[in-house]
């Protein structure tokens, strides 16, 4: 039935609503006006062409990490390592961007490929461990996150130390940056960069792989039921590894768009929060590529608006992250929402009979 197809949308919308209500309660609890807070939050994300550009730039990495988590999830794998894959992608891209002195049209494909390889490798290892030794991918990807964290912590100060700060790399040159003049001008000097086109291209490619190819069919079959996929003659292990590599590559690409597009250097001491937000993006987007796009843009608004809200009111910017975290919790406990929707459906049916 049609209403069942729209179920994930309703669950997502109700989760978002509950998250926003919880955020409002927190604002009120700390002595602020929630209505005013939300007005500034959304204004901060959308009120000018420049801010819309920033929102899209913030959403770029989220789209890609969301796709990464969603893609692995379709094969029944939980990629909690998007953060680490993003860091490694970013590190590889920054390293080549700083080391090679080539014209932009040559250098950009090289750094993007480096990011995809770096992230893909960070997905390959948990994939192999899962396929070959049945090591749970959640634990393996958590470990890979911290290995990436310390690798960046070591590599950046040792090889690419910034001019003033030990905790970040040198700024990349114009020829390695994803920002381009015409796009920056179009959005009145915003952070928006070529990454958004890469993200949209990735959505289309992933949607085609999942819905129109044999590979996508096999990956989904493994996700639905490993044993029957095997019985049907599919190579389950190969599909697991492939799925993790593709997921890792997407997160690696997210790293390139973030560190070479949104930012212009890579910092140490943080696991990028986009990796974990990606789980929320995938979850709310019901693991579909287009759902991920919509969710990522919504989160982009929250993230890029929170600074403006903080400047105009006394509400700390962490409210944005808190709302997203609470939304994930509600999306994870969607059984409650499903029960609620079932009741409404039953009620409507009952009313019709009368």
């Amino acid at each position, binding site marked *: 039935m049609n209403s069942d197809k729209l179920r994930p949308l309703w669950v997502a919308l109700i989760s978002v609503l509950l998250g926003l209500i919880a955020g409002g309660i927190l604002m009120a609890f700390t002595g602020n006006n929630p209505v005013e807070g939300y007005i500034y939050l959304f204004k901060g994300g959308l009120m000018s062409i420049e801010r819309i550009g920033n929102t899209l730039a913030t959403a770029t990495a989220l789209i890609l990490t969301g796709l990464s988590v969603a893609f692995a999830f379709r094969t029944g794998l939980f990629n*909690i390592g998007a953060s680490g894959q993003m860091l490694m992608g970013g590190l590889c891209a920054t390293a080549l961007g700083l080391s090679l002195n080539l014209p932009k049209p040559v250098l950009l494909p090289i750094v993007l490929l480096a990011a995809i390889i770096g992230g893909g490798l960070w997905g390959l290892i948990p994939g192999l461990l899962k396929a070959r030794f049945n090591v749970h991918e959640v634990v393996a990807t958590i470990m890979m996150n911290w290995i990436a964290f*310390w690798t960046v912590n070591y590599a950046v100060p040792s090889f690419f130390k910034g001019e003033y700060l030990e905790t970040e790399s040198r700024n990349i040159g114009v020829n390695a940056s994803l920002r381009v003049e015409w796009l920056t001008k179009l959005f009145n000097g915003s952070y928006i960069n070529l990454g958004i086109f890469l993200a949209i291209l990735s959505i289309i490619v992933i949607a085609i792989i999942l819905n129109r190819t044999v590979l996508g069919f096999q990956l989904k079959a493994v996700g639905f039921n490993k044993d029957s996929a095997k019985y049907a003659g599919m190579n389950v292990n190969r599909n697991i590894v492939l799925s993790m590599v593709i997921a890792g590559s997407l997160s690696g690409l997210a790293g390139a768009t973030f560190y070479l597009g949104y930012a212009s250097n890579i910092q140490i001491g943080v696991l990028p929060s986009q990796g974990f937000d990606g789980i929320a993006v995938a979850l709310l987007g019901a693991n579909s590529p287009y759902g991920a796009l919509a969710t990522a843009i919504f989160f982009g608004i929250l993230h890029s608006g929170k600074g403006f809200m903080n400047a105009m009111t006394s509400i700390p910017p962490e409210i944005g992250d808190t709302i997203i975290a609470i939304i994930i919790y509600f999306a994870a406990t969607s059984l*409650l929402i499903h029960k609620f929707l079932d009741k409404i459906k039953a009620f409507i049916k009952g009313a019709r009979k009368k």
Partner: protein
Amino acid sequence: MIDILTGIFPYAIAFTIPLLVTSLGGLFSERSGVVNIGLEGLMVMGSFAGAITISNLEAYLPNGSIWIGIMVAGIVSGIFSLLHAFASIHLKANQVISGTAINMIAGAITVFFARNITGSGNIRIQLGLQRVSIPILRDIPLLGDMFFSNTYLTTWVVIAILIFSKFVIYNTAFGLRLRACGEHPQAAAAAGINVFLIRYIAVFISGILAGFGGAIILVTYSGEFNGSVAGLGFLALAALIFGQWKPLGILGATFFFGFASTIANVSQAIPALATIPGIILKVFPYVVTLIALVLFSKSSQAPKAAGEPFDQGKR
């Protein structure tokens, strides 16, 4: 070389203890069948609750405030962990997603409140826990210097928790039920055990212990809440796996990780170690855990039902 070792021992132990108590918390949760990757967030919550309590009380109760702070941290984290329990036990949510949500909520909401209180998002405490030497035992040659001099009282409390946990898990009716719920909840339910209740209690204990862990970091070596415990919660999770879900295994694993991390932190100051790049020592615990997972993949001691929601109708 011996001097170096005895010199870094107190630091290694100080680093091990919060890891150990948090990992024991994870042990209770996972042994009951609930995977808890929210340990990191529960530690952050503990560190926050401890910092708030201590910074408000320390003017009146210079010594007592620290212990009150640790207790409050345990209680607050315990209550916070019930969010995870409710999601993963009652609502049959994906435990990994719920745990991730716990981590994210804790990381964001504590800094949100801290900013409202102090403006900066950090909360400093003036007084840390004093180091004490144990009389008589500290005079034992070598061992006295390594284990009984300059120790924190929290260390001994956590060791007591370890012994008590081992006793509870293996020698009491509750422990037997706990393990049954993690191995085969349907059989446990058929034997009349309330699986939901046992799992709730287990997750609650994991929250309390992780809260202690976060607070101990605060009162021993960090002295400040800053919205993160730098991945120690995940390291505790790694120790749980590396220790193969057994109390003494966890003791060994956390000490191993604590020692490796301490050596990594001080390696630049010690000529014999300065030649080893810090990264090798830092990634060591994580790589070792991955290798352990591979080696134990055939004979893993993981609770069989860990991560699976309990469904009465399933056989």
